[in-house]
């Protein structure tokens, strides 16, 4: 039954990030990636001492989505805000959609041609991806969906999230639990399915 009172989302409007490299950022997104510049806001810092004057500018990432940056004038760079090392280095990232194998190959060719360090195409469970970073160190990805997701995926995901919460949050001694414990609980849940 559809809940008509439930609001829905229609995809990404924009995501935004701070930059302390305004020239390199513009050159990368506008020239290297070739994304059209959509809009630029320039503003006094809302009259507050702790809010610097700034620019806020937007690049077109396609299909109504934009990637945007804030350049806060006169602020000290905080490089650890962009690309942390280790497993967190790719966790907070932006992935853009392409629609065909030809498109993802064309992007890899363009990035290599522009001197960007880019991964090979990596096949994951349901997507194929390229990985690279912008001049700020922000992780970027270009993804091709390789199969449509269905009911089996959604129902399995729901059980997985239940198992995650029961194992690592609500169960006994959650700090001692491993992914093997979670998979075992998942197995119990699957066994009980009709």
């Amino acid at each position, binding site marked *: 039954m559809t809940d008509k009172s439930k609001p829905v989302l229609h995809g990404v409007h924009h995501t935004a990030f701070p930059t302390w490299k305004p020239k390199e950022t513009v050159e990368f997104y506008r020239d290297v990636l070739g994304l059209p510049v959509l809009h630029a806001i320039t503003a006094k810092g809302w009259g507050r001492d702790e809010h610097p004057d700034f620019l806020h500018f937007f690049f077109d990432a396609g299909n109504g989505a934009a990637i945007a940056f804030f350049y806060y004038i006169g602020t000290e760079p905080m490089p650890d805000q962009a690309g942390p090392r280790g497993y967190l280095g790719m966790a907070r990232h932006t992935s853009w959609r392409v629609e065909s194998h030809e498109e993802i190959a064309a992007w890899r060719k363009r990035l290599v041609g522009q001197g960007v360090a880019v991964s090979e195409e990596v096949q994951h469970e349901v997507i194929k991806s390229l990985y690279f970073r912008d001049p700020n160190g922000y992780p970027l990805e270009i993804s091709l969906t390789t199969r449509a997701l269905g009911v089996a995926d959604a129902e*399995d995901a729901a059980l997985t999230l239940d198992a995650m919460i029961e194992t690592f949050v609500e169960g006994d001694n959650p700090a001692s639990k491993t992914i093997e414990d979670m998979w075992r609980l*998942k*197995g*119990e849940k699957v066994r009980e399915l009709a």
Partner: protein
Amino acid sequence: MPVLYVVDVPEFQPLVDYARNAPELTVSKQANYHKIEAAGELVIHREATGMDAAIWFGGLVGGYEGKIVEFSEDVLRIG
């Protein structure tokens, strides 16, 4: 008896194909999952499945029964 539940999706089908060709393993259906069982240890070698490591390491998402003896890039053993 060790059991591996494999979600019925294309990327994990190589696990099911492997099990169907392994005389010591049996495959049945359980809701949207394939239930792979072994009388003794349940062993699957990654290379024989043809799966890339990135997907292989996600292959236990459907859960299992028993005890994981080994889950490496080369082999999965459930006892």
